[in-house]
């Protein structure tokens, strides 16, 4: 019996990488290189389109993930524990708006804000505030507001778009933060296996800061990078095959047009610093639908959902998507009617 139990225990342990695994991984990469260089699958139009979009999404987003990981590692190593806990002393109605407005000082797009928010939670910032910051930063930062201004300059809806994006972005981020409420970080964050690193075993004396910095930088980048890869694959596949003209037929129906543009924003997975130019190209759509696109896209898109799924527990990722969707939809409709 004891032997059977021991066998079962061993069977449940993950198989460890050995020399054969290293050779198999290396050989697979060589085969991929041979197939793409000799076979030239790019001759097939859709494969070529997929490669270009997939490559561009990663090449554009990974540096921002790296910058986010860099900021997160700085927070982890150089910001003393307890600094963020003091923010909890603020009255609750002020905490979330303050967290949202902090995004103004953080000109980084959505891929970078996820690792930073995760690290802020781990360093003691209230999870509701960290989530509010994570969702607001990609919409409220000055680069995004400036690009929205440039994209809509010369149109009668200019200030509805610029002001509406800022205001609605902040409100939606606060709404999601409010729903998070008093849940603890352990209820929200998935454990990262890489976090239990070997340096924790050296508790006999403090590990050098530079070592901890680089370990956290690498771990965060590699952790987020794999989910970005997954999200970019799905987004590129959808971009390759989805004709945007499918949606233009819905432009005349106000309610459906908002849903359609929000769905498009989620599918395209654009960077928040450039999405205004794409939104502006849909001249058939009204201001509500445009706002839906501009506010929802930087908070929920395919690559972000992959990042959320890797960072947060499943229920929480679902909550973010649902609350952001409902709040954006209602807010965009209202703003479109009131100011459009």
């Amino acid at each position: 019996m004891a032997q059977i139990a021991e066998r079962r225990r061993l069977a449940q342990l993950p198989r460890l990488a050995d020399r054969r695994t290293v050779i198999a991984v290396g050989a697979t990469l060589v085969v991929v290189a041979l197939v793409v260089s000799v076979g030239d699958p790019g001759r097939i139009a859709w494969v070529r389109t997929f490669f270009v979009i997939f490559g561009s999404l990663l090449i554009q987003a990974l540096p921002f993930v790296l910058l986010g990981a860099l900021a997160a590692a700085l927070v982890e190593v150089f910001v003393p524990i307890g600094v963020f806990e003091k923010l909890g002393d603020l009255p609750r109605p002020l905490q979330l708006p303050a967290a949202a407005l902090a995004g103004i000082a953080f000109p980084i797009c959505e891929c970078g804000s996820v690792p930073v928010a995760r690290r802020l939670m781990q360093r003691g910032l209230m999870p509701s505030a960290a989530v509010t910051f994570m969702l607001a930063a990609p919409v409220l930062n000055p680069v995004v507001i400036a690009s929205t201004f440039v994209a809509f300059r010369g149109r009668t809806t200019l200030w509805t778009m610029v002001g509406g994006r800022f205001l609605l972005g902040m409100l939606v981020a606060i709404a999601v933060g409010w729903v998070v409420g008093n849940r603890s970080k352990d209820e929200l964050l998935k454990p990262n296996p890489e976090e239990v690193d070997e340096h924790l075993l050296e508790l006999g004396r403090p590990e050098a800061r530079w070592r901890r910095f680089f370990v956290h930088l690498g771990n965060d980048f590699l952790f987020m990078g794999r989910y970005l890869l997954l999200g970019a694959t799905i987004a590129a596949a959808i971009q390759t095959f989805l004709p945007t003209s499918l949606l233009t037929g819905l432009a005349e129906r106000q309610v459906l047009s908002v849903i359609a543009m929000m769905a498009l924003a989620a599918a395209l997975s654009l960077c928040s610093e450039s999405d205004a130019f794409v939104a502006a190209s849909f001249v058939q759509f009204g201001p509500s639908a445009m706002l839906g696109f501009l506010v929802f896209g930087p908070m929920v898109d395919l690559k972000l959902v992959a990042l959320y799924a890797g960072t947060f527990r499943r229920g929480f990722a679902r909550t973010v998507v649902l609350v952001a969707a409902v709040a954006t939809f209602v807010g965009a409709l209202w703003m479109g009617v009131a100011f459009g």
Partner: protein
Amino acid sequence: MSDAVVARAGTALRTETAPRRRWSPGGLAGAVVLAAWAGLFWFLWISGREAFYLSTRTDWVVPIAAVLLTLATVGRLASARVVVPRPLPARELWIMGLMVVPVVLVLFAPVTTLGTFSAGKRAGFSGAGFSASAGDIGSGELTLIDVAAAETSPEGEHALAKRAGDTVSFVGFVSIRDDTPADEFLLARYVVTCCVADATIAEVRVVNVTPGQFENEDWVQVTGTIFPIGREVIVDASDIAAVERPDHPYLTP
């Protein structure tokens, strides 16, 4: 981490001043992934291939990423020697390998751009905020971006209409659809603001073309007379010359 391990590590530290460090498999594998991505960004920067993925507005991320990833690789390697290395699960190694696949694709696949396959799926470029002021379009050399932007605002349309009969010269690729007459084609160029994922398309209709002379995705320079008709712009070609694909195949507004 078990208490026994911590206790052992703690005991060892009390008796030895400098514990012996060994390479961590996870640290090394992570360094290889970081190095692969650093290498890719250096390659993109040095070869100028970033123009096939990013606009000139955002290509600054490439050198920054190259430098930062190189530093991250060096730092990861320098911190990869630890006292008690944790074994690396095979699944984790496969995931790390997967993260290198995009590097292999970009490095080894032939250089390519968006072509006619996407032309019908992309929204038309609209950039009233950039260039469609009556002043910009009313005088000076017309660019493909000016023309495309002018088509999406009444002021731009009006200003462009005044340029009817002017001579223009545009570079783009040939796009022939099922319903395109034999003596015409669409001259197209993608407009990219950030990366290719946000590409929109700028197109003009070229008439007076020798049937069969050009195929889809041939790069050409069209010189001719422009005739804006409502929201459509026609160029009556006087000369069409095949050209090499530009180093910057996408336009940046």
